[in-house]
């Protein structure tokens, strides 16, 4: 007969524990449950063959990846968060981190004005006028930032603007590990 009290109490306790754990995880600075994990983590970066932004040199192709860890940033002049994270990319580039850009669905003039105003942290930029390279990389929010290792494998993907905190807690430690 005691079962009648024990079972509901047990069910309640288990549910409460699950909810508490979940709330704890999604708390401030915790994981973002709306973020969709990239299918390419630990897999080869999807092929790229992008021309440079019209009137610039460079372009971005698969052959440019590999040999050394690199940050690949998917950006556009029409994307406000891209503007917000730009100073961090500039800082990384100054520190010697290799940063590549994929410029998505941008008019060449707008992209060039964006870089002229905020600075150009990118060693190479590929222009993805149709947004198809972005789809090949599974991009769904702008900006997105990928860490690609020396074997051209994607090791990390960040959706949305990177913040100081992401930089210090995730991206920098990962780059340091990959440089070893």
């Amino acid at each position, binding site marked *: 007969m005691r079962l009648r009290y024990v079972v509901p109490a047990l069910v309640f306790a288990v549910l409460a524990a699950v909810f508490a754990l979940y709330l704890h995880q999604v708390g401030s600075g915790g994981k973002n449950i709306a973020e*969709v994990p990239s299918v390419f983590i630990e897999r080869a970066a999807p092929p790229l063959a992008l021309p440079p932004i019209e009137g610039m040199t460079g372009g971005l192709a698969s052959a440019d990846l590999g040999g050394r860890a690199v940050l690949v940033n998917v950006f556009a002049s029409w994307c406000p968060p891209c503007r917000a994270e730009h100073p961090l990319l500039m800082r990384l580039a100054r520190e010697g981190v290799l940063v590549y850009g994929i410029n998505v669905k941008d008019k060449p003039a707008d992209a060039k004005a964006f870089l002229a105003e905020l600075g150009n942290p990118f060693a190479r930029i590929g222009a993805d006028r149709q947004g198809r390279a972005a789809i090949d990389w*599974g991009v*769904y929010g702008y900006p997105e930032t990928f860490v690609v290792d020396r074997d051209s494998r994607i090791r990390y993907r960040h959706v949305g603007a990177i913040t100081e905190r992401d930089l210090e807690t995730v991206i920098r430690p990962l780059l340091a590990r990959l440089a070893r």
Partner: protein
Amino acid sequence: MIRVLAVVLLALAGAVPAGALEPGERLADPALEARAREIGKTLRCLVCQNQSIDDSDADLARDLRAVVRERLSAGETDRQVVAYVRDRYGDFVLLKPPFQPSTYALWAAPVVLFGLAALTVVVVLRRRRGAADVARLSAEEEARLARLLDDGRR
């Protein structure tokens, strides 16, 4: 009046919900377009997350609708087209979760929970019937009850 009503009803009958699809996106071949619509309904727009790419106005949804149509026009099967998108965006892009080891629990949960509920109901009903047997009065008690009732009536 009836004629007006008939016209209105006919117009409504012909109105197919068009989702977020713009007229320019449509394929000329109605059979291919119908397949594209069916595929579009099964793919999640990752920007809005609870809308299909067929329903969503997001840029990404429009691009994916175009990709679906291009690949169908190139002669791919529905399965190939869905696989193309899934290879890039993962299982989450499918609005209906696939049946695979990582989702067994998800698919089994309703059956298991329903089973548990049914079992609980059966057990409770059984017990209640048992309890009723116990509560029945003994012959002695019946006699005493009859006496008390008689007393009350006098």
